[in-house]
């Protein structure tokens, strides 16, 4: 297919997906809508994390950076009286700015050292939140943080309007992330991942591009934090500890990071299993064990992530369509 032409089936699939996402809350219970809000935010979180991994660096500080956006947005609105929509943007910008500062020490490292360095940097930030009760609230954090302002009769305290708000913000952000990946910048990220020395030899400033990926990913992570904090209304340093980061890694690994949709599949499937199905089946206390079992099974049987199922499914459908007469596939079709 030539560049610029889009498969019409993709348009249909996109419209169906959009309609499903719009209609989804009406098929959910009230508490499931609450879960849906957090899920939509986490979709952006894990997608922004993937942008970071495009350059080949895996960070353990992404959730802390989300916290930077959350704290910044909370403080701008609570202490300085900045309107919440603006404070959300400022929170995202602050997270990006902090990432830019961290880039200088962190990108002196690569691979495993970068991973550990990002963990250490995240812990320093968390300790700052704990140590300075003013303005960060110390270990207990901040509470009674203003929510997104009502628009006429629409109260964003309720999960339904907030779901749609998040859907719009996250949808726009995902589009932006997708376009970045498909641009020359995104191709350069990939080049740095696979052949950084070669990229340098043709004049690519790898530090700048790594920094750009880190700052962009952090800005969107900060936006996630801002969306979270103005919905939940409270924040504390433990919310952004390494245990939460492990969940982001799990979503990315189980979903796969080779495609744009891989981590999204991971977060959606695992959240639905953990928060909806297992709870509904009454496995409240057994959930960590079952969750662990699912992880082990997925690593064993789907080492390339859930995303690896999609081409297999497509190949299967193609083989069904093109199977010659008399073969089992064509008989099944008939």
């Amino acid at each position, binding site marked *: 297919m030539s560049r610029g032409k889009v498969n019409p089936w993709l348009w249909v699939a996109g419209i169906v997906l959009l309609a499903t996402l719009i209609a989804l809350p009406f098929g959910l219970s009230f508490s499931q809508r609450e879960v849906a809000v957090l899920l939509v935010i986490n979709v952006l979180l894990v997608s922004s994390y993937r942008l970071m991994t495009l350059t080949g660096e895996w960070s353990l500080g992404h959730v802390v950076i989300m916290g930077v956006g959350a704290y910044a947005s909370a403080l701008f609105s609570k202490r300085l009286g900045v309107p919440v929509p603006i404070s959300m943007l400022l929170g995202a910008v602050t997270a990006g700015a902090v990432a830019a500062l961290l880039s200088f020490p962190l990108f002196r490292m690569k691979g495993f050292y970068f991973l550990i360095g990002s963990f250490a940097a995240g812990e320093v930030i968390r300790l700052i939140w704990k140590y300075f009760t003013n303005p960060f609230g110390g270990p207990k954090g901040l509470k009674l943080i203003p929510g997104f302002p009502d628009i006429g009769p629409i109260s964003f305290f309720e999960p339904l309007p907030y779901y749609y708000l998040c859907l719009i913000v996250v949808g726009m952000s995902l589009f932006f992330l997708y376009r970045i990946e498909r641009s020359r910048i995104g191709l350069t990220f990939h080049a740095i991942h696979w052949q950084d020395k070669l990229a340098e030899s043709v004049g690519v400033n790898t530090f700048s591009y790594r920094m750009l990926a880190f700052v962009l990913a952090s800005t969107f992570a900060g936006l996630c934090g801002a969306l979270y904090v103005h919905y939940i209304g409270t924040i*504390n340093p433990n919310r952004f*500890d390494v*245990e939460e980061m492990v969940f982001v890694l799990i979503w990315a690994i189980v979903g796969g990071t080779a495609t744009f949709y891989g981590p999204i599949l991971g977060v959606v499937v695992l959240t639905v299993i953990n928060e909806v199905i297992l709870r509904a089946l009454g496995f409240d206390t057994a959930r960590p064990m079952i969750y662990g079992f699912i992880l082990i099974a997925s690593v064993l049987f789907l080492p390339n992530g859930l995303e690896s199922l999609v081409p297999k499914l497509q190949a299967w459908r193609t083989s069904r369509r093109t199977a010659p007469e008399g073969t089992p596939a064509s008989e099944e079709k008939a």
Partner: protein
Amino acid sequence: MKNLLARTRLDRRDFLSASAAAMSVAATGVVPKVAFGAEKTVKIGFLAPLTGAVAAWGKPGLDGCQIWADWVNDAGGIKVGDDSYKVEFISYDNEYDPGKARAGAAKLIKEDGVKFIMMLGGDTWPGVQPIAENEGMLVSTLLPSDLTPNTKTLIAPCEVHPIYNVTGVEWLAANKPDAKKAVICAQDDALGKPSVATYLAAFEAAGIEVVDDPLFFDPATTDFAPVMTRLLSTNPDILCLDTCYADYVHPLCEQAFQQGFKGTIISCTADFYPKIVEKTSKEFMEGFIFQFPDFDDPALNQPGVNFPKPNEFYAEYAKRYGEAEWGAVSWEYASIMDLWADAAGKAGSVEPADVLKAMKEGGTGKHAFGDAKWWGTELFGIDNALVGNWPVVVIENGKAVIKEFRSIPDWWDKHKDLMVKHMTALGQMWNQRG
């Protein structure tokens, strides 16, 4: 018979279809959880961590509530007005996460129709607060540091954490007068800090010197050897473990044992202490002071203790879940239910506002360890904490024994200035939080 079996045998397709149907029915919640015929049922929410690092202060409480519900329901339910109500607990694991606590509160209130929610509180309460206030839901917490003048429907009717810790220190000072130097450690979180302030006040009131600054370690700490080395470097007589979670108390004790500590250990809790005794020794753990008794203790049968049939409750708990699973909160949520049921009976209603009014009528209430008063304005900005006597528990020959019940209000009347001073210094007064 063989033919019958052959006729009714499921093939793989039938089995999968039937399983899938059963799973989807269960998943959509169509299956009734408990059926009590035509009798009325009141649902109570249990919103606490049932998994994760803080599960020790949630799961044993739910287990205790199940015993409470079985006993009450077997006896015909609770009498409210002209009706008898069976009690059904609906639990939701909030994983000690405010976002999940909010989702849980929404489910319990809007979908399950509970009339009362019991929580551990702490980090999770701010996530629940707006929805509870909007819905006028009565909520209990074990952590009164959640209380503020605005939390009108939040009560701390059982555990006035950490104020009761003063009774342990008072007992220690009276019974081990030679112990004069103490050190304190705590995890750096919302539970650790107010508890440190309380121990500092209690030690000062008892004339015990705290020889080093309290050591706050990160909740993610897993290696406690350096923590203990630093604590023992000043050669203290008393090692105070503050309100550390069970996951910290156990390794801290092991480290103290391995590093040769010979003094007295005092701690808010010693959940699953038989496992600590196993890992150390009976001799090492002899004289360990904490605040949460085993309910097989005969001292709980003395007049004035309001918890009904404590020894039988403990025996049933040990039978169902194992003696080693008994923890600080195993009885607490059940004792809150006693108070709630009593208030619902008085109010003639299970509606939250009516129950709260009846509960606080006269300014006193029947706390598990004796009659107590609703208190807290000076510390929390609201009189929604029920405070009275609290037991001092000491491990003797590998077993927890209640040594004495001491009055928290009496200590408060004498030393409240010290408490306010230390709480203020650590930023823990209600008007300093968040």
